[in-house]
């Protein structure tokens, strides 16, 4: 609260992002402890959570006032014009303070109160139980103690961080462990080791490291095989080796038997961050031409990276499906690219993860519990900007591409993905706070914050895919096609708040409505039929009593209500059609051409609009 100087500014203009003629809405700006709120003259509210703010920028003063540009992590960009510079400055400073918190305890999740009591809160947290999930997968069993296995194929997906091999370091325990993994699979003795990094990078790194010598070795403490390395006697030897040889590396095929080694070439978090930045720069350009858009899309490399992640996941799924081989996936640290590949691979292999609940489990398992550093990657706290990277966004985009290719295979729809993306940044719920399980426990998140999942499940209806068919056997294992044609710019993510760019009518909503009406009508039919049956039975019994007549009477109201229901649900649909959002020429860029209509010229014919005059 101490950061807020001005709570309310009137006569603020909100500029349209893509309009070149500075079309704007005028309204009032409110600053609260958690949100920035803009209410325009039509009483339409725009809420911006402080945690969503990625950057605030004050542009040079103009005659209209002081421009303030706010970029959000959920890809909303708003452009305000505040009439007085002092107000603008106050808001600017407040937002700078409020959007970057230094302590976890200052995040929204710790003050957010959805009016639940403690037991409800606990229930919410227990909704997704990983022990249950491992049980579902059929582990632990005789081969596995606790890991990430796939019950059907007897092959397994494993994950770890990079081996600290340097040039020639070996670790016998590690070699034994890998052997144990491959032996645990009775079907195929071979296993794959997937290094998700691009090979050329590893080799060039190798070349430079020879000269430089030492860098800090980071050991991931959360990943089980590293625990073993730590405890082992090898540690000293290993550390020495690491110090000499700078640590990082990849498995030497000669040291591990029955192993096939594979690089899949996903770039690191820094490349991804700048790629997304370029993409947003391109797609945010005013008056963008088709050619600039595609050349920008190409040079950003974003879709190339998405394809690389997909290809890696497909490689993994194929190794398990076709060859029945176990797979060990790692990158450098084992929590970014590894999480992407493992979770996507699981999604391809197991249809359970394509349900709403299953997807939550997948995120809990492969992302949250395996220590994807959400707080650093999403920049929850004021920290190192070099640690921020859209790794999870990429995962969501890959899932979106899968839903595009397999419209019937997923129980959830695009809205669900967008909602999750919204909340990894919102800091409203505890799930994504912190960088690892240890940190989360220290923060006592389960006692102090709420879990996101029960809230999503409550709203499940909004996130259902009406085309989902759970029974279809065809979709047990997805085999997506990753030819380049299949990758498209995800407009509904990167322009989710630019309504003018969206399709004007939503197929999903209307099908969802129809489906529901269908169910209701069928239920009505069943009700009525059972009543008819009842009546017939009674008639055959010959007991046509007064009671029966009474029981017939209430029948008509039910019928009526069901008919009313039909009309009611139909009406909003029609209304929605009548006011198609964004469908007005004024909202679209071609309207700018229309300015030519109104260029003033010496007049003979004057118009009733009084705007334009014409020469003759």
């Amino acid at each position, binding site marked *: 609260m101490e950061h807020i100087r001005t709570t309310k500014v009137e006569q603020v203009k909100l500029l349209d992002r893509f309009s070149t003629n500075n079309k704007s809405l005028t309204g009032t700006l409110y600053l609260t402890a958690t949100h920035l709120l803009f209410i325009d003259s039509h009483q339409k509210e725009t809420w911006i959570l402080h945690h969503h703010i990625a950057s605030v920028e004050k542009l040079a003063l103009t005659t209209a006032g002081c421009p303030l540009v706010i970029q959000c992590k959920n890809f909303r960009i708003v452009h305000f014009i505040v009439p007085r510079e002092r107000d603008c400055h106050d808001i600017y400073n407040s937002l700078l303070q409020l959007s970057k918190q230094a302590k976890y305890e200052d995040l929204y999740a710790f003050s957010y109160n959805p009016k639940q009591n403690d037991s409800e809160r606990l229930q919410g947290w227990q909704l997704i139980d990983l022990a249950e999930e491992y049980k579902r997968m059929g582990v632990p069993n005789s081969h596995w103690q606790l890991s990430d296995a796939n019950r059907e194929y007897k092959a397994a997906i494993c994950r770890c961080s990079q081996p600290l091999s340097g040039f020639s370091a070996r670790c016998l325990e590690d070699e034994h462990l890998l052997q144990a993994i491959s032996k645990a699979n009775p079907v195929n003795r071979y296993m794959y080791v997937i290094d998700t990094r691009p090979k050329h990078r590893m080799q060039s790194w190798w070349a430079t490291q020879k000269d430089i010598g030492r860098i800090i070795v980071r050991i991931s403490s959360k990943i089980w095989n590293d625990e073993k390395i730590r405890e082992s006697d090898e540690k000293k030897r290993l550390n020495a080796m690491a110090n000499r040889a700078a640590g990082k590396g990849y498995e030497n095929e000669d040291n591990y038997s029955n192993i096939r080694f594979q690089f899949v070439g996903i770039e690191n978090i820094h490349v991804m961050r700048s790629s997304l930045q370029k993409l947003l720069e391109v797609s945010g350009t005013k008056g963008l031409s088709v050619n600039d858009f*595609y050349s920008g899309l190409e040079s950003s490399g974003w879709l190339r990276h998405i394809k690389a992640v997909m290809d890696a996941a497909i490689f993994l799924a194929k190794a398990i499906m076709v060859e029945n081989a176990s797979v060990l996936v790692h990158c450098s640290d084992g929590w970014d690219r590894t999480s992407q590949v493992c979770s996507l691979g699981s999604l391809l292999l197991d249809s359970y993860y394509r349900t709403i609940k299953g997807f939550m489990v997948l995120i809990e398992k492969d992302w949250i519990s395996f220590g994807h550093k959400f707080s650093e990657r999403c920049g929850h706290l004021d920290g190192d900007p070099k640690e921020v990277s859209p790794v999870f966004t990429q995962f969501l985009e890959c899932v979106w591409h899968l839903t595009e290719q397999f*419209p019937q295979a997923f129980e959830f729809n695009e809205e669900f993905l967008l909602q999750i993306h919204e909340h990894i940044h919102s800091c409203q719920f505890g799930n994504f706070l912190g960088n690892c399980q240890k940190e989360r426990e220290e923060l006592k998140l389960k006692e102090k914050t709420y879990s996101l999942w029960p809230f999503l499940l409550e709203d499940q209806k909004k996130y259902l895919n009406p085309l989902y068919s759970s029974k279809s056997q065809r979709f047990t294992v997805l085999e997506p096609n990753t030819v380049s044609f299949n990758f498209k710019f995800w407009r509904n993510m990167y322009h989710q708040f630019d309504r003018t760019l969206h399709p004007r009518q939503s197929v999903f909503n209307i099908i969802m409505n129809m489906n529901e009406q269908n169910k209701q009508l069928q239920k009505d039919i069943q009700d009525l039929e059972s009543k008819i049956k009842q009546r017939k039975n009674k008639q055959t019994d010959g007991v046509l009593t007064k009671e029966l007549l009474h029981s017939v009477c209430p029948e008509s109201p039910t019928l009526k209500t069901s008919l009313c229901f039909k009309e009611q649900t139909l009406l909003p649909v029609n209304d929605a059609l009548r006011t198609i959002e964004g469908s007005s020429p004024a909202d679209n860029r*071609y309207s700018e051409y*229309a300015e030519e209509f109104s260029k003033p010229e010496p007049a003979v014919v004057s118009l009733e609009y009084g705007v334009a005059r014409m020469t003759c």
Partner: protein
Amino acid sequence: MEFSELIRTGRAQAQLLRGPEAPPLRGTLCVTGHHLLLSPGPQSTPDLWLLLLRNVDSIEKRVAGDSGTITLRCKDLRVLQLEIEGVEATLDIARSIEALSSLESVITSFPFFYRPKGLRLGDAWHFHPPERYYKRVARETDAWRLSEVNEDFSLCPSYPRAVIVPRAVDDDALARSARFRQGGRFPVLSYSHSPSGTVLLRSSQPLTGPQKRRCAEDEELLRAVLAGARPGARGFILDTRSAQAAKQARMTGGGTEAKAAYPGWKRLHRPLERGRPLQESFVRLVEACGDPEQSMDRWLSRLEGCRWLAHVKEALSTACLAAQAMEREGACILVHGAEGTDSTLLVTSLAQLILDPMSRTMAGFQELIEREWIQAGHPFQLRCAHSAFSHARPKHEAPTFLLFLDCVWQLGRQFPLSLEFGEGLLLALFEHAYASPFGTFLCNSEKERCLCEVRTRTHSLWSGLNQPKEQRKLQNPLYVLNPLAIWPSVEPQSLRLWQGLFLRWTHPPEPAEVAWEKVWQIVTGKEETEASQPTASA
């Protein structure tokens, strides 16, 4: 001429490869006057595989050992491979196909021989769009009349017999105006937008020439248009060439309307690509779509380089501009480029689709195509002589109609509930425009169609498409009448490559089809339950 002269070898044993998805077919290959047949041996399935020879765009032969391979690239963008036994047979068949697929004569083409079961000759040729459309116009305003001044096609060979013109202008004035316009295409009514009382006209360029000639009747015609519209209406002349190109056209006898000669009218230039550059764009896009192995960067740079989506954007935004001027500014619009048979029609037909809910219905859209493309004299035979694979030097080919279909598809994607027809109809129209057993897209103008007696001797595509069994493929299950104008977004982020067409054969969109089938089920399921309810309650 006998077809048999061109057929060197009628029969051969062959195997047909139809891309990665479909299984290969083996059997006897047979070349007939209009078709390539493959009938599988008696042991396998009895169905016959058939290809209209007219559909073949380019042919490539290769021989190795004692067998040969023929690669057929079709106008509907399919690529087929025939493996034929015998070198001689391969070469002969290739030569026969080459000769038969490039026959110029219209009256020996397949539509004149096609007699399908269940259809009667002359069905659905009762479309007389100008007359029918005039009835609609006449209900709202009496400023217009139906003129039969072009009864014998002497005034304008590319116009239909009847055209809608201002009531105040008599036929003699029309004749003089026609002489002042290229190809005799004087300004005629294309669409009357009753909510704002304005009209959309189309014509060809005026023949002002270097001397800046004028034509009093032509000026009078446009003045009458403004007088007949909403009081105080202004007019815009939308030239689909750049100002530079329009000026240059003067040197070859064309030009633009002089400002001073047409009071109340203002000229706007919206350059749209046409002719050879458009064809090249199409060829390059199809080339890019034929290579599934290319990297992401290569694909994106080729997609950019072919400029196809840029053309889609330009066409849509020009149409939106015209529509907007009519709806919001209450202005009358005259659209023309040079000849007025290509980009002009693209703009007028798209503007109608945006403004007029009638034209978004199945029947209305068919009428729109008949009226604004076929009868309005888009030279289909010249423009669609070759598709994207042909090695022949392009002469008059241009995928203007395909560009129109693509724009319609983009509209349908942005307004999935507002078009009564689905992608199926657009795909069918694309196929039939390039090669068809029906007569609808034959010839270049109404005059030629009359000379060839197309109406009496061939079947209409519309009667073929409007059979009940075809409907499910063509309709949009989610259609709900939307009485408003539909304003699409023309930002590059909102436009997408039409995969259903350009990647149709290389990359079958199977899951999407399954999904649409499900949508159909949901929609029909709903109707059925609704229908069954009264019986249950009875």
